[in-house]
């Protein structure tokens, strides 16, 4: 059976499963559409949250981000998991007790202000729409790579699938498909990781293999990797190179950004009780950790394998003990077919610059490395592996390690599951904000339950259409979504939710001033270095560590924005009148778990 047929079969089977679930889990009321009738068990919700949270970026890109930077990018691992501690301790149980459907609804009630609610909607829309563009492009790329269709055809197929279960089932349909998608994606991630760990270190668990011994040489794997990459003139893998302050602030921005992402928060509205919301955050992190503790192993091992492919000597002994891989092998050898496959996608490229019939891969910008000495001795004309995309580390992993064809097909289905599940969660947050906060809350408060359910379905359909069109013509800033989405969630949404729960003194005026100033400062800082609306050449300051304020990178600035939000809200609240008595009682009531069940009926 050809690889293409295999891919088609496995992806087709996974889609049939999602559609079957969609038909089974239709929503009949707004409570089902927005919150799955608050009947999801904590473990099940944990699994759905994990799929909701782990996007195409986590599945496809994260291992590569770590692989080519090493220790410094551990920030992603800690930042994207540590946020769940904040969610469990500071937000999820109280927002579940509040017992409504959307994040802006809490902001509007707690700060007794329609203006605050609408600002909340605006923050939510900016964060979720930037985020969903990345997911839709991820769907298109995965489709076109594995099913040999064009990017846009792939995108429309993905959109039609999300339409099926999101419009029909709302939160209920999305929850059960996300559970299925989690199982697909974690299987797809783990199988190649176990194989590759066994091959290199003899360890069945990649988490142990990372700190195990490299079988072929008997040296610790990370020591061996450090030696090979520094031989080639790259930075030592396990060492700390970047600014400590920036690393701390970036990790914190990712953590509070994670806790402030609306599509993650609303998942905790689906469990029956407050105590379930706490427990469910723990389960979510267990399921996320199954991928996040494996990712650093996948990254480092795939990088080692790639390097050893280019320099066969690295596998058993010294990096330069054998000549670099020959151009002939790359172009004809069956075990290097993956290089030719990935060359056609543009994610991998090489060029025999000095015409010696071999492709030498090294860091030609470093004049003091062993590779530089070899380059002079052998008359090399610079690095000849000209493009190595980060995403290769996961996508080509099964092929690099020579795994059977069905593993490749499962990885393709896993990549699609990761992108589709996150897209659906984001679309639900967007359509809920439109139908519940804008239409029901502001424009047509007298709308019937049936009318609102219809409005929710229509806004879901429109959101899918908008996201697909944006995915087809991604604006230039698609690649910058991490900085923008996390920066904004961290600087606007998280602080206002936390203050709403932990302080009775923060007033309407304080919250509005805090949200607006936190968000504005963060956006300005990002645009000043990255260009207005990310249009190249419009940046006012050079995007280099020397030019950054105190060396704080634009991606880390969400932490500073959050701090500004807290300070401004506090100061303005002190200068304005105390919140009314009914709001203080609301805060009292969300602080105790008893009575959360009543909210189900509302």
């Amino acid at each position, binding site marked *: 059976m050809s690889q293409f047929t295999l891919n088609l079969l496995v992806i087709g089977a996974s889609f049939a499963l999602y559609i079957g679930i969609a038909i089974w889990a239709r929503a009949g009321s707004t409570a089902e559409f927005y919150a799955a009738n608050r009947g999801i068990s904590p473990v099940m919700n944990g699994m759905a949250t994990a799929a909701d949270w782990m996007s195409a970026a986590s599945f496809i890109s994260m291992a590569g981000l770590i692989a080519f930077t090493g220790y410094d990018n551990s920030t992603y691992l800690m930042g994207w998991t*540590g946020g769940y501690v904040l969610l469990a301790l500071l937000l999820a149980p109280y927002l579940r007790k509040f017992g409504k459907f959307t994040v802006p609804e809490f902001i509007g009630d707690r700060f007794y202000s329609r203006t605050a609610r609408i600002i909340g909607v605006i923050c939510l829309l900016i964060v979720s729409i930037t985020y969903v563009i990345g997911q839709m492009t991820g769907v298109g790329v995965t489709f076109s790579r594995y099913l040999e269709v064009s990017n846009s055809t792939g995108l429309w197929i993905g959109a039609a699938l999300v339409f099926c279960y999101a419009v029909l089932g709302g939160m209920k349909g999305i929850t059960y498909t996300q559970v299925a998608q989690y199982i697909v994606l974690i299987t797809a991630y783990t199988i190649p990781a176990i194989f590759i760990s066994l091959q290199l270190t003899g360890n069945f668990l990649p988490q142990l293999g990372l*700190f195990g011994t490299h079988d072929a040489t008997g040296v*610790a*794997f*990370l*020591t061996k990797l*450090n030696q090979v990459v520094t031989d080639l003139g790259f930075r030592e893998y396990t060492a700390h190179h970047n600014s400590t302050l920036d690393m701390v602030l970036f990790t914190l921005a990712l953590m509070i950004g994670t806790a402030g992402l609306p599509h993650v928060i609303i998942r905790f509205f689906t469990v029956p009780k407050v105590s379930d919301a706490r427990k469910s955050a*723990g389960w979510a*992190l267990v399921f996320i*950790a199954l991928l996040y503790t494996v990712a650093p192993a996948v990254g480092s091992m795939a990088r080692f394998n790639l390097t050893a492919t280019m320099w066969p000597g690295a596998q058993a002994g010294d990096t330069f003990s054998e000549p670099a891989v020959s151009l002939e092998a790359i172009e004809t050898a069956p075990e290097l077919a993956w290089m030719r496959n990935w060359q056609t996608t543009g994610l991998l490229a090489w060029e025999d610059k000095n015409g010696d019939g071999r492709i030498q891969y090294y860091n030609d910008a470093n004049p003091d490395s062993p590779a530089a000495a070899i380059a002079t001795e052998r008359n090399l004309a610079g690095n000849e592996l000209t493009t190595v995309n980060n995403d290769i580390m996961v996508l080509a992993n099964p092929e690099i390690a020579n795994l059977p064809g069905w593993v490749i097909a499962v990885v393709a289905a896993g990549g699609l599951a990761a992108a589709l599940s996150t897209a659906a969660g984001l679309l639900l947050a967007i359509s809920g904000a439109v139908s519940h906060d804008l239409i029901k809350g502001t424009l047509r408060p007298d709308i019937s339950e049936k009318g609102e359910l219809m409005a929710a379905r229509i806004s879901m359909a429109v959101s899918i259409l908008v996201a697909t069109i944006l995915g087809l013509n991604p604006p230039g800033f698609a690649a910058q979504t991490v900085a923008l989405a996390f920066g904004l969630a961290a600087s606007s949404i998280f602080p206002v939710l936390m203050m709403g729960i932990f302080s009775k003194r923060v007033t309407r005026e304080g919250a509005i001033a805090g949200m607006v100033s936190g968000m504005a400062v963060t956006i300005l800082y990002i645009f000043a270095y990255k260009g207005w609306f990310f249009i190249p050449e419009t940046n006012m300051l050079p995007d280099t560590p020397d030019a950054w304020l105190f060396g704080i990178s634009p991606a880390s600035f969400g932490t500073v924005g959050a701090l500004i939000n807290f300070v401004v809200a506090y100061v303005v609240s002190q200068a304005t009148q105390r919140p009314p008595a009914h709001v203080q009682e609301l805060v009292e009531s969300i602080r105790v778990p008893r009575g959360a069940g009543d909210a189900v009926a509302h």
Partner: protein
Amino acid sequence: MSDRQSSNAYWQANLRIIYICLAIWALVSYGFAIILRPLISMIPVGGTDLGFWFAQQGSILVFIVLIFWYAARMNKLDAEYGVDE
């Protein structure tokens, strides 16, 4: 008023548990994995040092334990103050 006082005591107890959890949360991630890494670098872990292990594995595992510990501790507290569901 006694109701109000007991719910205040419940909230204070909750805050204390949150402070403890957040202190550990910050210690393992910002502490051991980043700022304090040089101080614990003499403890070797498979080809590298303890700080690297905390950065790529340990802190995530501690986060999981923290959340479940908090959930269990709060269930007990809820029952003590009679505010459980």
